């Protein structure tokens, strides 16, 4: 007897006690879940639910066990069971808040990323948009909400000036993000679109994390650790560059040097501007990535640039007289960020960036020096359980210094030193996968005006079925007065804006439709009578902008063709700077339209891109006329094309031509300060530097792995 007992203990397989476990699995909405995994923890025993959500399995296990029910997208359920006995259970699984499937706030925001399919733009779009010549701002200017202001190349968003769009790289502020350019010619964004894996272009209502931006935030996220070793060489009509990425086990380093010189091009293609020395620039970029522990990532990015040119500018009053303008600019930006996951719920993001820009302009042997320095420090803590609620809060500090030297005896010094401290907090509340509410608050203190500013942010989004969603956003925004003015009067406060946005978006397959209406109210805008008279400055300016934007993108209807259409309507007026009255500013046109196409011709291995841009007439002020900003320029038209030919898997030949039709666009007029013999102020049209810009380049990638730039369907 004793032996038998011993045998039974030692050979449990001899004693077979079977239990049957059965039941159903449904969602919390009561629908059956097929394919759910039902099993006893730590054993092989279990099964999958059938089409009706039913399950049934048997087990020979005994004692206390855990019965687990799991299915993708639902919270796992566990119950304790004691075996052997036949059991029947009905499980109701709760849907997990899945941030990938869940509703996203789309009001005011266009994002471009590699991963998610819901991104409106892909990083490659920036490079392949005709007319943009691989300039980030150029590509974003084909999106609604922007204004075509061809003489600056900057992003003018919804009645806001170019300076009201701020650029952030990995959350850190970048000052002077455009390379210098000759007066009334477009400047390019300093940063290569190839550096970034994600771009978010917000035309209003953005998160409390982003401050010091009145109209728009351009949020650029740099690439993570490089996983492939490669060398790239570009040979262009305007210069050359070489870059290399090397990846190591836990880190990667990338560097790029670029030299551009427009002399040969300007020799060939006549320019309306008389250059003694065409723009020449040296540019260096460095990116270092290091993985710390399991989840930590350190990113260091540095950019330096030196640009100079010399032009002769005819005076307006007498075109025979020319001013010699000699400009040289040195620029450096260093950006370091560190992010880490502290625990299941907590994560940390910190960063530090510095910008230093020194520009010297010599006008007819009279030197002027402008220096801009800035430092930005930031830390953000996030609490996220990947469920209904997430919270992030943090603090940041901006230091800015700007100096303008006239270099004349007894001339006043124009400079300022500003410290801005700020704290912000924001919570996302998911009421379901279909409804999210985001509420945030931001507080700032400016050392110069000694003012505290508290700005609220609020947005919500509601998914209407699988494809449509409606979002609302509201927020107050502020931005330090422009350096040019703050230097003269150190007491100026922040300019302020209030945004109201209503957005509807419909996504289906590779088609996107968006329509967004907005109202924007400006207050505390800087006003002055004389830009160099401190006493004439005030914050008494104000304004408004209202309108709507429509966007349609379709990469589905026509095989091989991807196109998008943007239309923006805007009605805006403001009383700011030296305006004598409230008027529509010169940069604003009522109607803006873009039509962008990209078509891949398989037989030619060539992508052909076209962009047509239209901007209706813009106001300008003719001092010979009664009233202010009452005159209108002709409308703006531009048709640009580009070709990317895949010569080899690692060689791309690229050609682009802007303004193919050679339209002689007029951006506005400038007038002389003095009157001529007839008592008239002399006017001169502001036009494009040349009717067309032609670009040719070869881009070569060298890599151990023969990387295809475009792959056919497998």
């Amino acid at each position, binding site marked *: 007897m004793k032996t038998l007992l011993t045998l039974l203990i030692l050979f449990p397989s001899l004693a077979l006690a079977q239990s049957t476990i059965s039941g159903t699995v449904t969602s919390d909405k009561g629908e059956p879940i097929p394919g759910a995994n039902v099993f006893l923890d730590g054993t092989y025993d279990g099964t999958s639910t059938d089409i009706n959500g039913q399950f049934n399995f048997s087990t020979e296990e005994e004692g206390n066990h855990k019965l687990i029910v*799991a299915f993708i997208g639902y919270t796992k359920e566990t119950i304790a069971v004691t075996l052997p006995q036949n059991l029947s259970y009905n499980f109701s699984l709760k849907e997990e808040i899945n941030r990938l499937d869940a509703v996203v706030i789309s009001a005011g925001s266009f994002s471009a990323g590699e991963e998610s399919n819901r991104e409106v733009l892909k990083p490659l779009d920036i490079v392949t948009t005709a007319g943009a010549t691989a300039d980030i701002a150029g590509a974003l200017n084909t999106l609604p909400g922007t204004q075509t202001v061809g003489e600056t190349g900057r992003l003018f968003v919804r009645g806001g000036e170019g300076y009201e769009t701020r650029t952030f790289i990995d959350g850190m502020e970048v000052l002077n993000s455009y390379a210098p350019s000759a007066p009334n010619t477009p400047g390019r964004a300093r940063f290569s679109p190839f550096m970034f894996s994600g771009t978010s272009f917000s035309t209003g209502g953005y998160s409390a994390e982003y401050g010091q931006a009145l109209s728009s935030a351009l949020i650029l996220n740099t690439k993570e650790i490089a996983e492939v070793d490669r060398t790239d060489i570009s040979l262009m009509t305007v210069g050359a560059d070489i870059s290399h990425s090397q990846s190591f086990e836990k880190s990667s380093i990338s560097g790029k040097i670029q030299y551009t010189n427009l002399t040969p091009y300007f020799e060939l293609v006549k320019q309306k501007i008389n250059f003694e020395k065409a723009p020449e620039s040296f540019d260096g970029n460095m990116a270092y990535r290091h993985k710390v522990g399991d989840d930590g990532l350190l990113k260091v990015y540095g950019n330096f640039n030196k640009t100079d040119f010399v032009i002769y500018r005819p005076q307006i009053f007498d075109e025979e007289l020319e001013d010699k303008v000699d400009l040289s600019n040195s620029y450096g930006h260093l950006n370091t960020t560190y992010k880490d996951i502290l625990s299941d719920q907590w994560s940390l993001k910190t960063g530090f960036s510095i910008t230093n820009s020194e520009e010297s302009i010599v006008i007819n042997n009279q030197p002027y020096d402008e220096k801009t320095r800035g430092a930005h420090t930031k830390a953000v803590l996030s609490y996220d359980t990947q469920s209904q609620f997430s919270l992030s809060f943090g603090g940041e500090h901006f230091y800015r210094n700007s100096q303008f030297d006239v270099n004349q005896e007894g001339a006043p010094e124009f400079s300022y030193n500003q410290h801005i401290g700020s704290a912000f907090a924001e919570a996302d509340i998911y009421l379901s996968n279909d409804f999210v509410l985001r509420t945030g608050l931001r507080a700032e203190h400016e050392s110069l005006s000694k003012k505290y500013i508290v700005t609220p942010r609020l947005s919500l989004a509601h998914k209407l079925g699988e494809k449509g969603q409606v979002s609302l956003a509201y927020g107050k925004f502020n931005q330090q007065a422009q350096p040019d003015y703050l230097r003269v009067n150190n007491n100026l406060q922040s300019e302020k804006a209030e945004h109201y946005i209503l957005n509807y978006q419909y996504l289906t397959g590779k088609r996107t439709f968006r329509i967004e209406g907005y109202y924007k109210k400006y207050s505390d805008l800087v006003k002055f009578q004389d830009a160099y008279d401190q006493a004439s400055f005030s914050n008494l300016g104000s304004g408004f902008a209202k309108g709507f934007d429509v966007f349609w993108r379709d990469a589905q209807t026509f095989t091989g063709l991807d196109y998008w259409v943007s239309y923006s309507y805007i009605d805006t007026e403001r009383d700011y700077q030296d305006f004598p009255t409230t008027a529509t500013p010169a940069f604003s046109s009522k109607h803006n339209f873009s039509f962008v196409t990209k078509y891949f011709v398989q037989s030619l291995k060539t992508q052909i891109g076209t962009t047509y841009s239209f901007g209706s007439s813009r106001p300008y002020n003719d001092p010979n006329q009664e009233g202010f900003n009452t005159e209108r320029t002709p409308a703006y038209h531009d048709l640009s094309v580009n070709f990317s030919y895949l010569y080899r898997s690692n060689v791309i030949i690229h050609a682009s031509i802007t303004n193919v039709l050679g339209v002689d666009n007029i951006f506005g007029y400038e007038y002389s300060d003095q009157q001529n013999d007839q008592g008239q102020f002399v006017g001169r049209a502001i036009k494009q530097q040349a009717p067309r810009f032609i670009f040719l380049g070869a881009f070569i990638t060298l890599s151990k792995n023969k990387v295809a730039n475009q792959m056919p369907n497998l």
Partner: protein
Amino acid sequence: MHKLILIPLFALAVLQWSFTEVSKYEKAMKSSIEKVYMAKNIEEYQNAINSFERIAQKETDKWEPLYYSAFGYVMISTRVEELGEKDKYLDLAKEKISEASALAPGEDEIVALEGFVHMMRVAADPATRGQQYSGLAMQALNKAVAMDGENPRALYLLGQMEFGTAQFFGSDTAMACEKLQKAVSLFQTQQPESVIAPMWGARQAEAAAQRCGAPAGE
């Protein structure tokens, strides 16, 4: 006397225990592997994956169940239409591969499967993803071939990638075809190391090699 009997009994018990455990693992794996190879639709793939997940949560030191779960998810990704859905399953596959390679970092089959996942990302949206993911796919597949030059799956996938690239650019497909043909002959001759070793790919490799036409010299 009692004690003397107990010793061999105990030894026998241990033997039986370890024997049943091993065979139970292999048995469960074998039947699940059959399920995943035979699966005809998403439901059947999900059921097979569920079996592997049950095995994986018990056998926390084995890479194979994770490997096959990942394989199942890749297969599901080819059967869903929408890009976001494809990505969801490829993300799940990638998750399983990461877990598997943490257990067996030197396993070339896992690296080859990772290359396959990257390939499927390219296939999902070639125009926008080609540049990023084809590089990653080539890198992983080359690594797998470097780890084991006789891995027919790695050779087939690498050959497939090279073939597509060469054909697209109108360049010579000889190198790609050499790999595909080597993969086909390895599929025919190679004996699996164990009953649970990966065996998929022979049919696909043959189909791919057929596109090469008659081998050079014939």
